[in-house]
């Protein structure tokens, strides 16, 4: 039977860090490009040339948004594909320098999987707030045989912003290119300069799913790790999803135009969640840096609570959130990010806001949460 606990129209989607709802600008651009951009942009006839112009305009707009040159930027079938291309291509391009990938312990699993495929990886830890151990990082990138370093711009699980500028400086001193996975920052927050490769994912900023962005700065060695590519610059195989790319470019520009205002608004809502959760839910740990954090993301862990049970209870009340607890993941392991920080991994909830999130959504969430946690604890006899 359909659960009727959710009042009509009262669902609140609070998982923007997984996929933000489509920005209205993206929807418009997508529909327009479906009409105009269906041809293969590599063909020379008029339809192909029209598609080529759309692709180039999208590339130029996205490059401008990210402050890079259009020929440094390429579109990939997902953020994950862009991460794989950055890590494997960055390592392949520096084969003569060495084989080691230095990476933080809190990278997205796409980086870790690419690293595992490649072989030699050196992990650098984080502290209890999820901040990179910069001394450990400096020492790691100085070691002989390091081909590439990888640092997430801000943790996708706990929101802690990483010291990208300082990490980039250490890499520059060591002569090691730095890859920054900016999936959670692009369209939301500043990305400091100094990196050599960068990736992002359109559906994290309100673009459609299925568009990843890879930037390889001029002078950075990158060699395609994939078969059948003899082009001089990074590019995935096959025809691009041009309508989605056009929508991604348009929505990035729109998201960045709103970013400063939205950051202030969402950051205040996140602060309210941090304070209220700490005040109203006993035995809870709000994790991540309280100050150096993303504006729209907050994570907490509740003692004695099964994360999956809490996720489903919230869903029944109309709230979509995600969890890093082991029982909710595809593996039986808890989140490697929470483990690396040494914070509680069970009873974990990540709330991530977007431009459609209202104060009323957050207040309803905060009104419902303490009771649900108490219920689950009572069922477990706590």
């Amino acid at each position, binding site marked *: 039977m359909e659960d009727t606990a959710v009042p009509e129209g009262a669902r609140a989607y609070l998982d923007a860090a997984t996929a933000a709802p489509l920005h209205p600008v993206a929807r418009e651009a997508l529909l327009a490009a479906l009409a105009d951009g269906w041809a293969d942009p590599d063909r020379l006839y008029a339809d192909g040339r029209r598609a080529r112009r759309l692709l180039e305009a999208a590339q130029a707009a996205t490059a401008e948004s990210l402050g890079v040159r259009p020929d440094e930027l390429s579109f990939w079938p997902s953020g994950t594909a862009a991460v794989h291309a950055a890590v494997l291509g960055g390592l392949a391009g520096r084969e003569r320098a060495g084989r080691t990938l230095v990476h933080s312990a809190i990278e997205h699993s796409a980086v870790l999987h690419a690293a595992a495929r490649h072989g030699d990886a050196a992990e650098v830890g984080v502290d209890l707030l999820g901040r990179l151990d910069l001394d450990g990082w400096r020492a790691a990138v100085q070691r002989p045989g390091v081909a590439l370093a990888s640092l997430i711009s801000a943790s996708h699980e706990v929101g802690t912003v990483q010291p990208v500028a300082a990490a980039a400086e250490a890499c520059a001193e060591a002569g090691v290119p730095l890859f920054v996975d900016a999936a959670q920052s692009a369209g939301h927050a500043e990305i400091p300069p100094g990196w050599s490769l960068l990736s992002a994912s359109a559906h994290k900023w309100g673009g459609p799913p299925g568009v990843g962005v890879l930037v390889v700065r001029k002078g950075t060695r990158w060699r395609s790790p994939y078969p059948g590519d003899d082009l001089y610059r990074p590019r995935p195989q096959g025809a691009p999803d041009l309508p989605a790319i056009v929508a991604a470019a348009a929505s990035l520009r729109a998201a960045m135009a709103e970013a400063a205002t939205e950051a202030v608004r969402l950051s205040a809502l996140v602060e309210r969640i941090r304070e209220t959760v700490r005040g109203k839910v006993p035995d809870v740990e709000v994790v991540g840096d309280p100050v150096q954090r993303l504006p729209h993301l907050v994570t907490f862990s509740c*003692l*004695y*609570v099964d994360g999956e049970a809490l996720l489903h209870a919230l869903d029944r009340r109309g709230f979509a959130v995600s969890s890093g607890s*082991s*029982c909710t993941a595809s593996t039986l392991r*808890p989140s490697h990010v929470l483990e690396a920080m040494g914070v509680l991994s069970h*009873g974990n909830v990540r709330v991530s806001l977007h431009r459609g999130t209202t104060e009323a959504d957050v207040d309803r969430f905060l009104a419902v949460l303490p009771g649900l946690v108490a219920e689950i604890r009572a069922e*477990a006899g*706590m």
Partner: protein
Amino acid sequence: MITIDCLGRRCPLPVIALARRIREVEVGDVVRVLADDPAAANDIPAWCRMKDQEFLGSPEPDAFDVRRVS
């Protein structure tokens, strides 16, 4: 010292059992939790930090010692 056997039980059950049973020992005494859920190695020390108890370490695989200090 008491031993709590949580082998085969998924998190958060080992931490729930620890929180309940630690009240049975005197302050200064040790509780050993046997747990093979992969989250236990992370969550038992985290519980100790949150509840101001002392995590003594893992003397052998799937075993975790906690001293009651309050």
